[in-house]
């Protein structure tokens, strides 16, 4: 088992001028489950490929278990990987696909068979062991790729969207299974996903990436509740965080949408010094409550759209010209064009600098 230490990775693909990863540094502790999250094209796969040794960085270093592996070929790194494209060998049956890594490691035959059977059972592939990949569905092929990776007992497990092609139910099942397996194996895991629920539920820590850089690194709950900048807040969560243009006056009031409430201490102080401070107010949909219009401490707003989601109801609300999303319990009855009052959970409000977009904290 091994920790991964990534330092200052720069990578530009040949023929491209943009940095695919830009000075990425990341420490993944031994046995830690690290999730990489980020929009398409932000460099997640690139980072994983460099850890795997399939691409070499232009600058920076990678070490696994204290050993510098930056320029070591993949076969000497003792890791295993689920490829985003699966890369399941088309000329081998499911059985020998899963066992491929074990054969390369010269694992004895009976142990190999036992492991293959175990993985196939786990991923519900047992009926397909003697089929060729071309005879499988996309999701089944993806499961073969996952099975091939988990039988390896590798120090480092790299997974590039391993559950992306499964239906919602299977994904829910496997998410729990995967968490269990990885804990059992104790592998250090780097896991790429687009699915935020997956990221939240699986990870010990999340690294949110943006344009080749790590925008925020931290516990999933921290990243969710205290996004380091506007990008992270807007990327994580469904619906994403609401952003409202506001202003802290010299007197220490927070003005949003032409109405004002109290501003937090630290902002009031710096606003008093600078004579007023424009801010970006961030608040999540579930931290806004609907009340009677005109109730003290609420902001006047008008409901635009009502979307019942089953477990909750999502409202699109017009707040003095700015459109925000509000999530309320499904028992709350509201109708479009209704005039309501919005109460923000003061503890859940985040503030961002209007220029740097960075989070403002005390």
């Amino acid at each position, binding site marked *: 088992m091994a920790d991964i230490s990534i330092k200052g990775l720069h990578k530009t693909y040949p023929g491209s001028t943009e940095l695919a990863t830009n000075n990425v540094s990341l420490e993944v502790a031994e046995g830690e489950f690290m999730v990489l999250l980020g929009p398409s094209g932000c460099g997640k796969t690139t980072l994983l490929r460099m850890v795997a040794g399939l691409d070499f960085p232009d600058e920076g270093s990678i070490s696994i278990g204290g050993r510098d592996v930056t320029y070591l070929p993949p*076969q000497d790194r003792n*890791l295993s990987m689920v490829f985003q*494209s699966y*890369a399941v060998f088309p000329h081998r049956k499911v059985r020998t696909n899963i066992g491929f890594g074990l054969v390369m490691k010269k694992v004895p035959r009976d142990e190999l068979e036992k492991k293959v059977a175990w993985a196939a059972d786990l991923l519900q592939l047992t009926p397909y062991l003697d089929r060729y990949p071309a005879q499988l569905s996309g999701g089944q092929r993806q499961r073969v790729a996952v099975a091939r990776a988990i039988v390896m007992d590798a120090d480092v497990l790299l997974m590039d969207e391993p559950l992306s092609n499964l239906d919602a139910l299977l994904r829910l099942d496997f998410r729990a299974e995967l968490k269990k397996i990885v804990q059992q194996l104790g592998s250090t895991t780097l896991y790429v996903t687009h699915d935020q629920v997956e990221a939240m539920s699986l990870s010990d820590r999340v690294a949110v990436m943006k344009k080749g850089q790590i925008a925020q690194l931290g516990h999933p709950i921290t990243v969710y509740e205290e996004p380091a900048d506007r990008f992270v807040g807007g990327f994580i969560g469904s619906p994403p965080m609401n952003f409202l243009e506001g202003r802290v006056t010299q007197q220490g009031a927070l003005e949003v949408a032409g109405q004002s409430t109290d501003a937090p201490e630290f902002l009031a102080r710096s606003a008093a010094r600078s004579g007023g401070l424009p801010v970006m107010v961030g608040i999540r949909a579930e931290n806004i409550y609907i009340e009677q219009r005109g109730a003290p401490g609420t902001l006047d707003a008008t409901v635009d759209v009502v979307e019942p989601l089953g477990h909750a109801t999502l409202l699109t609300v017009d707040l003095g010209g700015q459109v925000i999303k509000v999530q309320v319990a499904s028992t709350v009855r509201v109708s479009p064009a209704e005039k309501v009052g919005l109460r923000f959970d003061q503890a859940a409000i985040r503030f961002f600098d209007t220029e740097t977009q960075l989070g403002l904290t005390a």
Partner: protein
Amino acid sequence: MAAPDAPAAARPRPRPAAPRGRPPRKSSTSAAMLLIAPSIVFMTLLFGWPMVSGVLQAFGGPEGLTTANFSRMAQDPYFWSSVGNTLLLIVVMIPIQFVLALAMALLIRAKPRGSSVYFYIWAIPLAVSDLAAGLVWLTVFTDRGYLNSVLASVGMEPVSWLAYDNYASMFMAVLIAEVWRATSLVFVIVVAGLQSIPKDYEEAASVFGAGFWDRLFHVTLPLLRPSLQTALILRTILAFQTFAVALALTGQNFPLVVGETYRWYTGLQDANVASALALVVMAVSMVTAIGYLKLLRDQSEAPR
């Protein structure tokens, strides 16, 4: 497709319980026949007729059909040595060509500096006619050729590489010339085949601990099998027909089967025996091709 299809497709008729729900045959036979008729006519004129007349000639004699041509062919002292030479050449040459072509194709794929230039250089012999290739190598191996000049310049005795009594060196000369000339065909096919294999598979193999040779034998070669099969069939059939290179280099000293056909036809003026020989070459080629197809068939039968 042809117009007559349209109404039939537009109004699906209830089919009488078809065996195992095959899709209904849409095209009417006559339209299809009409469309392939030109090619059938051409094939008949250009292939069918010459072949039939060749077969008739092979079995033809003064008194009707006979197998005498075949026995004359077999009794000729050159025949069996030409068969032996041809087989030896094939057995030695084809593995060399495949290993070389594969190595060159893998080198190209590794994209060293100027790899596209290498590709064109290695593909050039494809455009050189076999007689020309034979003549080029003749300038190397002949008694006063380049090879002997080089030997002389380093103070060694010249060797009669192509002399009748120097079988080994004669064989080597033909082999080298043929390898030089014809490897490019295999090379081009293998390069095309390699390009169609996504890099992912080899990358996956290397992540799972496979070194270069493991990747080659467990991933690249199996995935390359269709290309190798094509190349093998083409190369073997063409190797049966090797002729001009040996003729240019050795005259009649290193007889090959197709060379014998030529000798019977032009030298001995016996078209019947020449046809018999040609027929044998054709039969062997066909059997070989079918054998390869059967032997190398993808057991998986799984489409990619």
